């Protein structure tokens, strides 16, 4: 049953919904407990591939996805939802091996693909909507011709993964679910990080706008691009933040992996990387203000006393005047 296998792999599609509807699958205790397992394995960072063999198991599998969505919709917890979206989309993308599956998902997400002379192109709007936000996917670095962006097979899969992630991050609110969902909520709540790890000693205004914007996204558990992570890491290291503290900050990331993060931050420290210059930040597309400070690290060094944080223009002028008076 081809449709069933497709639906198990990609349980958000119409095919999956049809199966659930047709068979009148109910949300029983077992489905909910499977949903909890599904979310738990995403919290571990990797998710779990389906090993369902029999038809009834496969249907359970689809139902567990649906129940997980209801549960997440009821909890409305960004941390959980984004963890789920990142881990599940990674697994689903890894399962994409048949061309017809790729085409099926592209149709679902309305990704407009054009194939010419054995080359794959996406329409510019489709590319803009679903390409990951990193420097190699900026259109200025791509071959762009008459509204078509050239991509390769690997990138095509990556773009579909991104489309799935975005889709899974959007979660409709569920207000009055069954008792079993309410019980599951209690169980999952236990697993949430006890102290929200995003507490920063750095106050708003202490950092340049580009950094603040990234931090804001980070505490909202949004998925940062590689460039954003690297930039933030070098910035914080150079500002003297301790390794453990930076790693705990990165715990907010939906695909957080302590080992990899620790390794990368240590690497920044060992190599003595300085934060990228403003012009680099601009070329990454991460600049969001015209501060004219050359390097984001200069944001603070403008102030005479590091303890006081950034000075506004008025107080700097006053400083000048005072020193003038002394002469």
């Amino acid at each position, binding site marked *: 049953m081809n449709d069933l296998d497709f639906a198990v792999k990609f349980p958000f599609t119409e095919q999956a919904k049809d199966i659930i509807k047709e068979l009148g699958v109910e949300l029983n205790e077992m489905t909910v407990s499977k949903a909890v397992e599904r979310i738990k394995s995403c919290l571990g960072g990797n998710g779990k591939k389906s090993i369902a063999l029999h038809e009834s198991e496969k249907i359970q599998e689809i139902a567990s996805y649906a129940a997980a969505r209801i549960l997440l919709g009821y909890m409305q917890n960004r941390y959980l939802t984004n963890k789920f979206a990142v881990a599940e989309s990674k697994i689903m993308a890894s399962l994409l091996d048949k061309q017809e599956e790729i085409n099926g998902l592209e149709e679902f997400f309305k990704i407009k693909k054009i194939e010419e002379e054995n080359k794959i192109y996406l329409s510019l*709007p489709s590319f*803009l909507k679903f390409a990951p936000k990193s420097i190699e996917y900026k*259109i*200025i670095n791509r*071959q762009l*011709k008459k509204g078509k962006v050239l991509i390769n097979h690997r990138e095509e899969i990556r773009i579909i993964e991104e489309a799935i992630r975005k889709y899974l991050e959007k979660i409709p609110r569920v207000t009055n679910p069954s008792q079993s969902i309410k019980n599951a909520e209690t169980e999952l709540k236990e697993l949430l990080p006890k102290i929200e790890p995003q507490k920063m000693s750095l106050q708003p205004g202490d950092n340049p706008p580009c950094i603040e914007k990234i931090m804001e996204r980070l505490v909202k558990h949004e998925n940062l691009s590689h460039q954003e992570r690297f930039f933030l890491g070098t910035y914080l290291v150079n500002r003297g933040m301790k390794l453990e503290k930076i790693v705990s900050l990165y715990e907010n990331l939906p695909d957080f992996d302590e080992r990899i993060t620790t390794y990368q931050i240590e690497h920044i420290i060992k190599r003595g990387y300085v934060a990228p210059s403003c012009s680099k930040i601009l070329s990454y*597309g991460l600049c969001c203000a015209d501060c004219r400070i050359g390097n984001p690290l200069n944001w603070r060094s403008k102030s005479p006393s590091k303890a006081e944080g950034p000075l506004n223009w008025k107080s700097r002028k006053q400083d000048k005047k005072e020193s003038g008076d002394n002469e």
Partner: protein
Amino acid sequence: MNEFIIEKFREYYKNADLDILKPEEREFGIGNKKKIDARHLSFNSIDEFRLYLVSNTPLFTSHSTAYYRYPNETPIERKGWKGADLVFDLDLHADGKYEVYKKLENVKEDAIRLIEEFLIADFGINKKNILLVFSGNRGYHIHVREEEFLELRSDERKEIVDYVQGTGLDYRNFFTREEIPGKKVEKLKGPKPNEDGYRGRFARAVIKKITNDPGSISRIFKNEESQREIFTKGIEGGNWSKTRVEKIIERLEIIAKDLPLKSVETDTGVTQDISKLIRVPNSIHGETGLIAKVVKNIDSFDPLRDSLLKSNGEIKVRFNEDVPELEMGAETLSFKKDEIKEIKDSVAIFFILKGSATII
């Protein structure tokens, strides 16, 4: 405000060709003291909007680039956003009140490049979905109404702005060095003029520069025609090593620098802002009395001639400051402080609104 000016505006609006796609889905704004004093207005048809303009006659009128389900709902989240035109604002800043009007030709060139090189050639947008409008003051607005682009969100529009402005563009990445077997020198491979996007544009610009202004690259090119020919011929085939000019890539930086469009306004985020209000095409700009005219033929379009309101004769004005020489309505005008003069009412409005003249 001056009754004479309001009367001129009103007379214009009675028959103005207001070019608004789906007016019933747009939010409208009007202004007198500022460009927008009130917004969240909505009109069911162009006629209804016209009636409003004729009876209320504001100095400024704008509509949303966005299409909404409920355009007059507030706050904006409740309007039901359906999509938005992709809009570019090209303008110019210059010192002095009138300097900018002498440079409008430069903005026009950028507008043509934006449409032809970027929107049509690179983005594949159909020409019939592009509306070019004089802003009524310092530049041009370009409205793109291509279906697939309407639903792009702010971040995705920012990518388009980055592309047009050349953010992150490094022309040195166009080149690769390749060893030639048995030879000491390397072959410098680079873009060909028939390529798409920035690569092709760069190659074409270099050939043009070498042909028209070779001295700006190197004295060798200036003095030796054969050197120019050999080099440009090489470029046609993607071979950039056919010259003895040293550090050729570095020398071409001045050309790369001019490829992106610098006059696309991004400080105010017009393109990224998906709930922006923009001047209604063919409405009047309240700071100049010029029509924000929909441009049909850009090559022959002269904003200070073709955007004037219809004249009903001359009126007498006194100038309270010097006005430097300005080409306006096919005449060259200049005025001295305290000069009293009878001039066409359509031209007088411009100087009155600019604060240089008063009716006497």
